């Protein structure tokens, strides 16, 4: 039984279409197994007192048995891979069976029951050979410095660059032209869209669509958008000179005042100032000092 489910998932789909008479060795192999399963099912039926069974019923039961075994195999494999092994052990199978609701303790008794029938082993057939992958070109032989026991080179197409190019668009003028036109088109389309979907102003009273202007809208804090660089600009800056930033001093600066500000907002707890003091014994600035608590005057 266990040797069967080693086949794993792959076989399931193949089994289900195995009804068709074909003669490839892989299919023959599978058909033989299937036939054994059918024998098993028939034996079990006989054992339980059936004298005859319809073909369809046997087929169904065989299918069920096969699925059950396949599931045990899949599951056991999953368990074994989970523990970073590649070959399932007995315990994997046991855990699987438990997981599937099977009482493992009953298994030895069942196996040793008296009325069990012994079935002949399935005929020995050749294990299916994986068809050769499409090979293109000549495989390279190992150069002299690589020992022959090393794996062979893969097919050349997997590593060889095959330059296939169209008419080259490296003409600088065309590229610039294209980039410029594209950007302009995008910008125009975008602004027109925004203008169409929102409020607009117009320079002409009679025609409000030819040159639509997105309406000016006052903001609550106008200096923020005017002074802070936009995300696009920041991105561009990062791309152009990520190396030039002197991260070190920058990083230091960001940490200190930010952290201190937070501290100054919080009521000073015992912990915060002490860690602070150890950090910046260099910088003594009155604005970084923690806020004092008021003196308690109530003496009642």
């Amino acid at each position, binding site marked *: 039984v266990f040797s069967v489910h080693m086949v794993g998932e792959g076989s399931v789909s193949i089994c289900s279409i195995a009804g068709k008479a074909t003669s490839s060795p892989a299919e023959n192999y599978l058909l033989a197994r299937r036939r054994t399963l059918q024998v098993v099912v028939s034996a079990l039926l006989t054992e339980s007192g059936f004298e005859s069974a319809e073909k369809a019923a046997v087929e169904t039961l065989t299918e069920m048995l096969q699925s059950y075994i396949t599931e045990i195999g899949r599951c056991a494999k999953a368990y074994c891979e989970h523990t970073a092994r590649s070959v399932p052990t007995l315990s994997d199978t046991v855990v699987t069976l438990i997981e599937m609701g099977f009482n493992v303790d009953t298994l030895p008794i069942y196996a040793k029951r008296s009325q069990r029938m012994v079935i002949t082993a399935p005929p020995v057939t050749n294990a299916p050979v994986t068809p050769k992958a499409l090979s293109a070109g000549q495989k390279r032989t190992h150069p002299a410095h690589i020992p022959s026991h090393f794996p062979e080179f893969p097919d050349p197409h997997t590593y060889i660059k095959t330059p296939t190019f169209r008419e080259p668009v490296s003409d600088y003028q065309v590229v610039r032209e294209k980039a410029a036109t594209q950007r302009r088109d995008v910008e125009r389309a975008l602004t027109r869209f925004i203008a169409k979907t929102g409020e607009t102003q117009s320079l*002409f*009273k009679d025609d409000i669509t030819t040159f639509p202007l997105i*309406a*000016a809208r006052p903001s*609550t*804090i*106008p200096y923020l958008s005017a002074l802070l660089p936009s995300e696009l600009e920041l991105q561009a800056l990062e791309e152009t000179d990520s190396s030039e930033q002197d991260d070190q001093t920058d990083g230091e600066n960001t940490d200190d005042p930010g952290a201190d500000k937070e501290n100054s907002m919080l009521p000073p707890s015992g912990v915060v100032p002490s860690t602070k003091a150890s950090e910046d014994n260099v910088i003594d600035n009155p604005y*970084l000092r923690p806020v*004092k608590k*008021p003196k308690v005057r109530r003496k009642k």
Partner: protein
Amino acid sequence: MSNEDLYHKVVGYVELTIFPTVVNLNRIKLNSKQCRIYRVRVNDLEAPFLYNDPTLEVCHHESKQRNLNYFSSAYTAAVSAVDPDAGHGELVIKVPSELWKQGDDLKVLKVYIEFSLDQPKGGLHFVVPDVEGSMAERGAHVFGSCDEKMKIFSCHRFWFPCVDSYSELCTWKLEFTVDASMVAVSCGDLVETIYTHDMRKKTFHYILPIPTAAPNISLAVGPFEILVDPYMHEVTHFCLPQLLPLLKHSMSFLHEIFEFYEEILTCRYPYSCFKTVFVDEAYVQVSSYASMSIFSTNLLHSAMIIDQTPQTRRCLAQALAQQFFGCFISRMSWADEWVLKGISGYIYGLYLKKTFGVNEYRHWIKQELDKIVEYELKMGGVLLHPTFSGGKEKDNPTPHLHFSIKHPHTLSWEYYKMFQCKAHLVMRLIENRISMEFMLQVFNKLLSLASTASSQKYQSHMWSQMLLSTHAFLKSISNVSGKDIGPLIKQWVDQSGVVKFFGSFAFNRKRNVLELEIRQDYTSSGTQKYVGPIKVTVQELDGSFNHMLQIEENSLKHDIPCHSKSRRNKKKKIPLMNGEEVDMDLSAMDADSPLLWIRIDPDMSILRKVEFEQADFMWQYQLRYERDVVAQEEAISALEKFPTPASRLALTDILEQEQCFYKVRMQACFCLAKIANAMVSTWQGPPAMKSLFTRMFCCKSCPNIVKTNNFINFQSYFLQKTMPVAMALLRDVQNLCPKDVLNFILDLIKYNDNRKNKFSDNYYRADLIEALTNSLTPAISINNEVRTVDNLNADVRLILEEITRFLNMEKLLPSFRNTITVSCLRAIRQLQKNGHIPSDPSLFKSYAQYGHFVDVRIAALEALVDYTRVERSSGELQWLLSMVQNDPVHYVRHKILGLLCKNPPFTKTTDSALCNEALVDQLWKFMNSGASHDWRLRCDAVNLYYMLFGLTRPSCLPLPELGLVLNLKEKKAVLNPTIKPELGVGAVMDTPASIGIHGFNTMEDEDIDMETVHDSQAFIHHHLNLLERPSTPGKHTHTHTHTHTHTHYIHVLKTLLIQFSAILFIWHQITTTVISMYGPYEQALGNSGKEKLPFNRKKPAKPASGRGTHLPQLVGGEGD
């Protein structure tokens, strides 16, 4: 009670310790405006007090007078009446009689004042972004309060009672209680920060041990982000939330400025700490106070911005220079202001020279010189050191101005800027005379004296060393240098005006002599006569030679012997002034003369304008070979008059020369455009600058496409920005912008690619839009047809397309300082003005609203002002004027009036339907009482009034009923002064008594048809009269009536002048509680401010009161 009400409220408490220096101290006068005073105590005794602010309403009692002469004199009188330097103030406290004895023993008096400030219009400025939404959201905003900040500007009497004078020094202890999320930044050292008992607020305790005058005290409160300077831990920077990265970058070089000043002055920074605060809606870009400076938040920038960087550095350097001279050392009196402005401007100039180079420095000096010359020639002289003979101001030193220069508060803003500009130029003249080493020694001496004095106790009488007067400065100069700079001071400081030279020359071949003629114009307005040495530099073939000539009364001609014979065929290098030897192509020059070029006063050691005549080839040589940028710039402006191929070549060569100073090259662009236009019929080759631009900035392989932006070289960046703008000014024979120039600019816009650039291209793009604007020419209009999209010119359509796209993109990706929107708005106005699109103000109105970035608003307002003038629209004028009155941002209000002055809808000489009685009344009311909270705004309004209506009665007003009035004093009938025709300046000078701008003589005339006399004038008359009598201390009888209004007493004083000139206020202790969120005091204080502030104004004084008895006499004596 709305939230805003709660926001804009300050409750405070001031404690002053006064050491009387005279016996008989019964009255204490302080400055205070718009504060509501609850209670005053002197040494724990309730003290009665009087609050009278004559500047609230300058001219009282609806008068038919609407002339500026009258207003100016009344305003000056009102300011004088509360001038702290003369011992006056708005708040008069009577010392309780129980303490008189103590005062006579010269014992310490303590004055306690409780006050509050409700919705202040000036002084303190609250910025509270208006967050829309339900009350819950608003409430959240209030408690979170992350957006509130405030700042203060110069006029301190606006926010706490004090002696608002630079000459009254004292030490300070300041306490501010603010919400726990806020930081209060003020002058001096932060000693500690303590929570209030409910833990919801914090109190900041500051101590300023260095004696400081009240105007140098300031405060800023907001949810600031804090940055300790990484190089100098005593320096702390503050900015508004989210701007910390910008702050870090912008402040990263401040330590260099510190080091520079400390090194040249060989003096440590005088305060123990320094704070910079960046606030929104700043009154001015830079303002310096003791140990702190307040800047506009718009100065912050990121590392990507090129153009803003030098500007921000300049602002920081200015602020720091003022810390030494202006804050630490302050002025003795208003007349000494020029010394401090001069020194701080001068050392700032030294910083410029060191940081930006000698070229930049000389360029800047030339710019400043041109500015002051232009202003003085247009508006009349700027007087640095006005002297007023005693109390009488009969001889007005500046009769040509429509305002008085006696007080800083009556000064036009523009005049004050020019005043500062002239002050540092004069300081530079002094340096030229005595050398920089001596100059710095003088500064060092002044500083060390002051710092010694500052550590002394008040009793040692040393503090006056911290005040600088003209006299002390000059004395120090003569001590250090041993040189007499008297004539220089007399010429430039005690006298106003600049010198205007006209020069021409002839070469006398026989004598080998250069005959130079220098004439002067000293009769037109703003000029003065110069007598003294002048330097002339002559570049000859054999080298450059300096000659010192003496300008004397009657000699115009000067003979200068030449060193070299003309010798054109010898191939020899020509030595220049700087020792360099160059090859020149001498074929252009005159065969008989060895002169290459001549320069008059090359070092700018006279405040002058020189119009010098020399041949075009000489200018061209000067441009090409003179190494001084000033000479090059002069040559460029001169070459505009010589549109020849040779000039073109010289300019093109300069443009291409990379060693040449970039600002010279930028100027050359514009000159080249002008020359090209003048030579349009003979111009050969492609449009000017086009091939040059292509060579410098376009791709080698495809010359119509500009390279992707790389602004790493700033010189070529500035050139790349400028050339298209200048090229767009080119015109063809039909006076249109050439088609290929327009296409070229459109291509620049199209192919602009900034992806690989580490700098932002916003200024470049803005300049490309400006180039498009410059290319516009008036539309050809047939029968005034209405402008529609269909009849749009094809080129204009392309331009409009670009502008629309730019303006729309800006909404999605705003550029730094919204430079692109600004350029677009200008372009749209230009399109309207040239008749391409219908003229319509509504777009500009929406951009002018509060809530847009300030630069955008100003650009929109500029367009609106222009619209108002062109279309003569009274609706828009009204709109602008209402904005002047109601806008939350002081700078915008100031700017609108400034723009209206620069581009007035009409002037006194032109007729306009806009000029009507209602407008006169409106402006008058605004000047008279509407702008009482802001000196600058009031002076702006005065400027505008002057611009629109002139000095005398506006022409649109109906004539007064009485043509003649009886002058009882002179016992004759005179023409009613209200209908006097306007006289020219010369006429004013001839008859100063008849129509002086201010002064009591004219006031007496003008008082005649007033129903009653203005309070403050009465005050002054009265006290001046008193002054003339001998005073007998201690024997004055004080008649005062107790008019009981709530808890206050009205007192009328007689002896103010005598006593207050000698009082010193020393230990100034302030406890100010800034209530930002809650208004628990609101209820307790039931009284309304209206009743209190002018409470002695409307109610007629009781007949028994001192003033009451005097007023009728005054009026009766001169009235009808």
